[in-house]
């Protein structure tokens, strides 16, 4: 009895935070706390990342040999479709916004929570329901249309489970919309006293711009996919030429969503990048306003470039010309960001810790992806490399080299804030380097393959392409090791990592002023902001924070 009364007394001494105030399953599944929802998202997207990754590994394994040695062609179609669907809608789009965004937006703005906590919880449930539909379709036999669901293949000819996957994506679309809506309103109405628009961290600007795209583009996808489902179920439809409908209309509507969606997948990466570069250069960002407004400019221009996916689909020469030009213009704000980050590095006092390694890797890979994007925006070259591995390599440099690198970087950066524990720095650096090397080995050969004319979405290819394909598959296995490493050492850090303290990186930003992990309502008293963000130049005047002894 004495021990039984003694233990609760010891617990009372322990500082309560959002993780340990209640351990019940109910308290997790019914949580309205943005920090817990972020963790729910983190676990779910990791699960989907693994499934999408396994599909990718099978694709690369098949492509080691020029013949169909591993899977049948139909299975191959299903593999790359599931890889695309899962990675785009169930990993990349929710990755930074729903995990880091959810965790950090209220903290960075000095708020107790997002504006609509119940909606936030609902969005996670929608994500899970959409995910279940997609997984059931996968187990039931998959879908073979490619993640783009082009009509009339998806609406008329495919004999796979298109409707179920489309319903899954439709539902997960509303999860995206609700997250975006929440962040827009949170940014407008939940800022703490003194937090003016230009005192917001650049992360908030990036997520805000992303949210605008999420809210305005996703409904277009939802309705378009609903029309595909209607066409499949009732055999009537708007994309059916037999009725007088137009298959090309589908492509317009799909890319009106899916090109902005590319920016849903990169703007949050840029948002994280701005935080990492400033912190590990110990400098305020070069051109804060330019970085902030380039995010908004990308969000707006991103809506005006969709038809560059359709240069060979039969659009007129004039619209091809206009969309080619607009696509090049969207590269300008992206370039502004890259220049500003590199200028921030200039004369900074740079420390190469794990998040910074990811951040520097991002600059290189994103620049490669961006520049090849400008190449693809030119009409003549696009006709040559359209639907080849050149395009595959280009968008993987943006999505994996850009978004996944920064997601990993951000995850490491805020890991001590989320969990209260430091990860192992040496293993962290190793994983960052492994991912960088593995990534380049995987995707650089694909640029060459594509330029030589290897089309995407084929399980077999002429034997002269085998050398580059083997290189790429070898890189994919290194990349896989790079992703498994953090999974192991981050989980181990929960138990063995040393306690992080409030601010292990001596970073600016409100999230670092509260305890790690933060208390349930983020701050013990609502903060008041009196100066600009990124006051790294002020830090010499302040005494360094004491590190906790254990």
């Amino acid at each position, binding site marked *: 009895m004495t021990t039984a009364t003694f233990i609760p007394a010891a617990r009372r001494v322990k500082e309560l935070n959002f993780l340990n105030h209640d351990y019940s399953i109910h308290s997790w599944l019914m949580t309205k706390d943005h920090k817990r929802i972020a963790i729910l998202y983190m676990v779910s997207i990791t699960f989907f990342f693994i499934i999408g990754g396994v599909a990718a590994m099978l694709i690369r394994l098949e492509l080691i040999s020029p013949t169909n040695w591993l899977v049948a062609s139909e299975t191959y179609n299903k593999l790359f479709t599931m890889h695309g669907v899962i990675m785009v809608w169930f990993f990349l789009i929710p990755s930074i916004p729903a995990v880091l965004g959810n965790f950090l937006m209220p903290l960075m703005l000095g*708020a*107790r*929570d*997002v*504006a*609509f*906590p119940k909606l936030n919880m609902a969005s996670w449930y929608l994500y899970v329901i959409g995910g279940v539909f997609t997984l059931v379709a996968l187990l039931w036999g998959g879908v073979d249309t490619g993640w783009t669901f082009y009509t009339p293949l998806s609406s008329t000819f495919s004999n796979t489970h298109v409707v179920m996957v489309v319903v899954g994506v439709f539902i997960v679309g509303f999860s995206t*919309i609700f997250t975006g*809506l929440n962040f*827009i*309103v*949170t940014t*407008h*109405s*939940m800022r703490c006293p003194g937090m003016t628009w230009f005192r917001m961290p650049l992360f908030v600007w990036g997520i805000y711009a992303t949210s605008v795209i999420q*809210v*305005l*583009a*996703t*409904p*277009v996808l*939802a*309705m*378009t996919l609903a*029309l595909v489902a*209607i066409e499949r179920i*009732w*055999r*009537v*439809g*708007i994309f059916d030429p037999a*009725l*007088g*409908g*137009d298959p090309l*209309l589908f492509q317009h*509507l799909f890319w009106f969503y899916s090109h902005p969606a590319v920016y849903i997948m990169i703007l949050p990466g840029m948002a994280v990048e701005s935080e990492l570069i400033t912190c590990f250069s110990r400098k305020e960002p070069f051109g804060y306003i330019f970085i902030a407004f380039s995010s908004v400019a990308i969000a707006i221009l991103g809506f005006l470039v969709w038809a560059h996916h359709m240069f060979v689909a039969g659009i007129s020469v004039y619209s091809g010309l206009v969309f080619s030009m607009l696509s090049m213009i969207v590269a300008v704000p992206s370039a502004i960001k890259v220049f500003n980050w590199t200028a921030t590095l200039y004369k900074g006092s740079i420390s190469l810790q794990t998040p910074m390694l990811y951040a520097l890797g991002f600059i290189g890979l994103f620049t490669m992806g961006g520049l090849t994007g400008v190449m693809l925006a030119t009409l003549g070259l696009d006709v040559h490399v359209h639907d080849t591995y050149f395009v595959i390599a280009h968008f993987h440099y943006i999505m994996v080299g850009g978004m996944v690198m920064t997601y990993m970087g951000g995850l490491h950066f805020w890991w001590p804030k989320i969990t209260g524990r430091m990860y192992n720095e040496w293993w962290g650096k190793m994983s960052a380097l492994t991912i960088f090397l593995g990534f380049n080995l995987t995707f650089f050969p694909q640029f060459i393959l594509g330029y030589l004319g290897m089309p995407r979405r084929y399980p077999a290819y002429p034997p002269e392409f085998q050398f580059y394909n083997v290189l790429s598959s070898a890189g994919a296995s290194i990349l896989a090791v790079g992703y498994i490493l953090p999974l192991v050492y981050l989980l181990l850090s929960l138990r063995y990592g040393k306690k992080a303290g409030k601010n292990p990186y001596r970073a600016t930003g409100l999230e670092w002023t509260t305890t790690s992990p933060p208390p349930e*309502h983020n701050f013990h008293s*609502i903060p008041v902001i009196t100066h600009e963000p990124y006051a790294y130049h002020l830090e010499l005047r302040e005494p360094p924070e004491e590190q906790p002894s254990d």
Partner: protein
Amino acid sequence: MTKPAYVEQQFEDIEQQTHAATLGMWVFLSTEILFFGVLFCSYMTCRTRWPDAFRHGSEDLFLWIGGINTAVLLTSSLFMALAVRSAARGDNRRVAIWLCITTAFGVAFLGIKGFEYAQDAKERLIPEYNFSTISTEDAGKPPSKQDPRPQQEQLFMVFYFIMTGFHALHMLAGVGVLLVLLIMTLRGRFSAEYHNPIEIAGLYWHFVDIVWVFLYPALYLLRQA
């Protein structure tokens, strides 16, 4: 400082909550505009391609039923606006009355729409179910006297059912929201200080109304070129 119970824990005061909730509804409505925008855009694209078939389709719709429904819906919006005004004054009895009337008009709209669908079925206008290029009226006449429908009129009817169908789903959701608000009003949850849910439900109701204001001319009124 203690907050009133109707202010949720994440907000400082009722002003912040009202601002957030109202902005949230406007952002949601912008999503909805794009949602319906796909349909309007596709409809106009196809209409430009098959102007004659689509005009013929418009002429086959029941203009008078659509007209009555327009009147019903616009009137419902008037009562919704009255409910919002009474809510701002804290007059819960009137709020309940106006919400009842708004709901009744909403249900009437859905009923009339259902009746119209039944008439469309009688006219053999439902694609893939009973669409026929020969109207019921012409069926008894000799072929020389018939005025057959163009084949692409079926595409028009697809648009008609999808667009009015999605609109009806939104109406159904709106009626559900109004019923919840009605119960909350009867339980005395609202006051002059806290009536924002009624106001933002009003925004939604007017939005669904405005969608119809665009649907009606686009589908019914574009008759004569």
